[in-house]
């Protein structure tokens, strides 16, 4: 039966306590904190991070497709799934598709992936959902939204979670939207959007799905739902008859926020981290309608290990210094540019030549002397051999800091720029920026891992590359 083989998630390192927002604007605030994409993160980099978490232990050469789902893709016209396929160095003939336009596009992508593997057009599909939704300062959406990503590998065999049934209802309604001219997400008045939108539609669709498959709410050990906020999640639970404490156990609203397209999938991963084999789950999204998935775990669920998923990512965090830091990162607060040379735009032809080295982070290893080197060289830096190399990936390697500096001069939205010289386990050295770090904790000799990030945006081009960061762990 078709279903989920593997899962992975991503929650940004940075968290903004919601009290920081009301400190500036006054008024009440929601409890807890929100996860905030770093100044060098966006829906693409977070999707890559979740995908990397998902494919741990899986040979990327065996992947047949990548679907990317988001309402906040950095490009209106340009496919992100192709970019992700290049970053993961997938085969050239994988299916790449972007899903957009609704918070339901994540489950739309999952449904399409299910159909593809069932129909036989692909053996498996990697689905990534990610959102950094723009919210206007001082509004309830800013308070409520958080950033995050989730990824599933969908296949027709050897699944950890069988998808037994799916059900859907569409619902044409102006409740939450963003037009091509809107910088921020809009919504109609709350009472209306829940009465005719989320709360009504999700509860009725789930009940209709249950009726169709002849199951009761109590038949599910866990329930993972999209929800705009904790209160409406509770309202849906009451209407359907789910126990918020036992079946839902939401951890996202208090510590991450409403992660949009990724939310239902992140809630599902949080549930999957806690279930055993042969347990039934219900999973539903919302956005211009509702998709419902009825699932059952297999014994293989226990084989999914070493995922950072929701639990580890939640525990590994840094509290942001201020609300103004958040506004600056989001470019919602204009600041005086430093007196430095204006940034140059990358060249499209150079970017093309750099696809494998820059995006997939491949260097080379000398076939004669075994020396790994980055970027790829024509002449070996150690033995001088010409063109005697094999490809060598640095993206999955651990490195050590040999030298570093906290730079106050370079232009960045997150000063200081921590620049570091990294020596890799197995050989090779690369000079990189360090992100998601606490400056005082950076020392010569600490271990770092690689993370895919946005370096600059010039002339309409987002320039992505890799940075290092202290290894994220909940320890």
């Amino acid at each position, binding site marked *: 039966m078709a279903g989920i083989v593997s899962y992975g998630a991503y929650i940004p390192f940075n968290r903004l306590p919601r009290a920081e927002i009301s400190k500036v604007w006054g008024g009440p605030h929601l409890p807890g904190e929100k996860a905030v994409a770093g100044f060098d993160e966006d829906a693409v980099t977070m999707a890559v991070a979740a995908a990397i978490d998902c494919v741990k232990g899986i040979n990327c050469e065996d992947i047949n497709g990548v679907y990317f789902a988001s309402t906040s893709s950095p490009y209106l016209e340009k496919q992100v799934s192709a970019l992700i396929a290049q970053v993961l160095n997938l085969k050239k003939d994988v299916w790449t598709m972007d899903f957009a336009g609704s918070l339901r596009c994540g489950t739309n992508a999952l449904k399409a992936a299910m159909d593809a593997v069932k129909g036989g057009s692909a053996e498996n599909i990697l689905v990534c959902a990610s959102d950094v939704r723009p919210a206007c300062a001082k509004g309830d959406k800013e308070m409520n939204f958080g950033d995050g990503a989730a990824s599933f590998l969908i296949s027709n065999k050897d699944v950890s979670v069988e998808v037994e049934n799916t059900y859907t209802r569409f619902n044409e309604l102006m409740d939450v939207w963003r037009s091509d001219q809107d910088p921020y997400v809009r919504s109609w008045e709350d009472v209306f959007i829940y009465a005719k939108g989320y709360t009504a539609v999700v509860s009725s669709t789930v009940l209709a799905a249950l009726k169709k498959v002849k199951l009761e709410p109590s038949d599910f050990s866990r329930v993972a739902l999209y929800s705009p906020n904790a209160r409406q999640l509770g309202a849906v639970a009451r209407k359907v008859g789910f126990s918020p404490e036992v079946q839902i156990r939401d951890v996202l609203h208090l510590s991450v926020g409403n992660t949009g397209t990724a939310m239902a999938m992140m809630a599902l991963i949080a549930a999957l981290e806690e279930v055993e084999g042969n347990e039934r789950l219900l999973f539903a999204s919302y956005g211009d309608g509702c998709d419902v998935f009825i699932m059952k775990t297999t014994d293989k669920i226990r084989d999914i290990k070493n995922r950072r998923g929701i639990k580890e990512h939640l525990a590994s965090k840094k509290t942001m210094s201020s609300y103004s830091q958040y506004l600056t990162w989001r470019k919602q607060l204009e600041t005086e540019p*430093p*007196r*430095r*040379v204006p*940034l*140059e*735009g*990358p*060249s499209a032809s*150079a*970017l093309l*030549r*750099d696809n494998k*080295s*820059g995006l997939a982070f491949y260097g080379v290893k000398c076939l004669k002397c075994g020396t790994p*080197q*980055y*970027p790829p*060289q024509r002449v070996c*830096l*150690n033995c001088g051999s010409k063109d005697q190399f094999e490809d060598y990936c640095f993206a999955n390697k651990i490195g050590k800091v*040999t*030298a*570093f*500096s*906290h*730079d*106050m*001069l*370079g*232009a*960045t939205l997150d000063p*200081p*720029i*921590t*620049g*570091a*010289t990294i*020596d*890799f386990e197995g*050989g*090779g*050295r*690369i*000079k*990189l*920026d360090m992100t998601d770090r606490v400056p005082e904790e950076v020392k*010569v*000799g600490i271990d770092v891992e690689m993370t895919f990030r946005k*370096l*600059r945006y*010039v002339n309409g081009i987002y*320039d*992505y*590359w890799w940075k290092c960061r202290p290894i994220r762990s909940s320890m």
Partner: protein
Amino acid sequence: MGSIRDRVAIVGMGCTQFGNNWDMSANDMIVNAAFEALEDAGIEIKDIDAAWFSSFFCPPGLTGQSLAKALKLPFLPVTRVENACASGTDALRNASYAVASGIYDTVLVLGVEKLKDNGLQGLPDAEMWLNMWGSHDSTYRCTTASGPAQFAQMASSYFSKYGIEAEHGKRILATLEASNHHNGSLTPKAQFRNEVSVEKIMNAPIIAAPLGLFDCCGVSDGAAAAIIVPADKAKEFRSDPIFIKALQIAVGPCDGLMNPGYDYAHVEETGRAAKAAYKEAGITEPRKEISIANVHDCFSITQLVTMEDLQFSPRGKAGEDVMSGFFSLGGGLPVNTDGGLKCFGHPIGASGIRMMYETYKQLQGKADKRQVDNASVGLTHNLGGIPGSASVSVGIVSRELG
């Protein structure tokens, strides 16, 4: 392989005021430096056979025409040289080779930079370097940290390698810069001519940790010039010419940025250029034989490791020599007698020739309040690039032939 030793001499030099030369264009500075050098050598434009011109980004325009236009050189061969901060010394090297070859008898070397017309802080070159350090040319996939941060990284690994506690490391660097400021205070053409205390240097705002404001050299406008002639004709121009003993340059293959074997606590290119220069000049004990050295202190840490790379101090021990005053004006081997890049200033393409200007004046006994007694052999050193990937030049000159 041949040698430049004792084959050419410098018989005239000129140097403008360095600093924020708001009232001078590159053209003005070229004219001032060139005519000072010509006058010093007792010659005129018509006596020049060829010219070498060094500039990193100097307007107006590219090629050697900037020099020819300013001086109205009569359709002479002019070669423009760029090797980052080593450009000036590389121009001097190429000009010297041309004279030594017998092709030309009288050659002008001039370096200029006009950095302060762009309204920016720091060098305008950051974006250019990124292409060299990144994943691929023109993708700008590279560390976004500034130039100073690349040198600051060397401080972190140097301190770590030699077990120097952070506070003491800062003090060593501050002591070194206080000495540069003292020397600068005695140098009329220098950009910064003020004494600064060690405490003030240590407590200055951080630029790129652990380097603070006073650990970083000035960004300056300026020009410097030299007249090169065959050694056997030098005395026809003046009684006190300075003879070139060595001019070496080592350009790194970017090894240190890719090879974990590089410890990031020295500059390999300096060591290589110095070794070659000492061999060329016949120097076996640099610490004893060199009277003064004007080295590339783009940052305090650069000056510190350079003392080791030039074999003045054993590895890890340069700090002890700094603290004992060995490199100060009255010490055993005065370094940066005119204040160095830190205080004299650093107009990229002019710096190597400015160092030679100071060395020339010291060896002629014309350095006034900062004169070093019995200065007979002088060394200059430039570093273009960053630790791990640099173009480094070392020049050695003497009052005497043989």
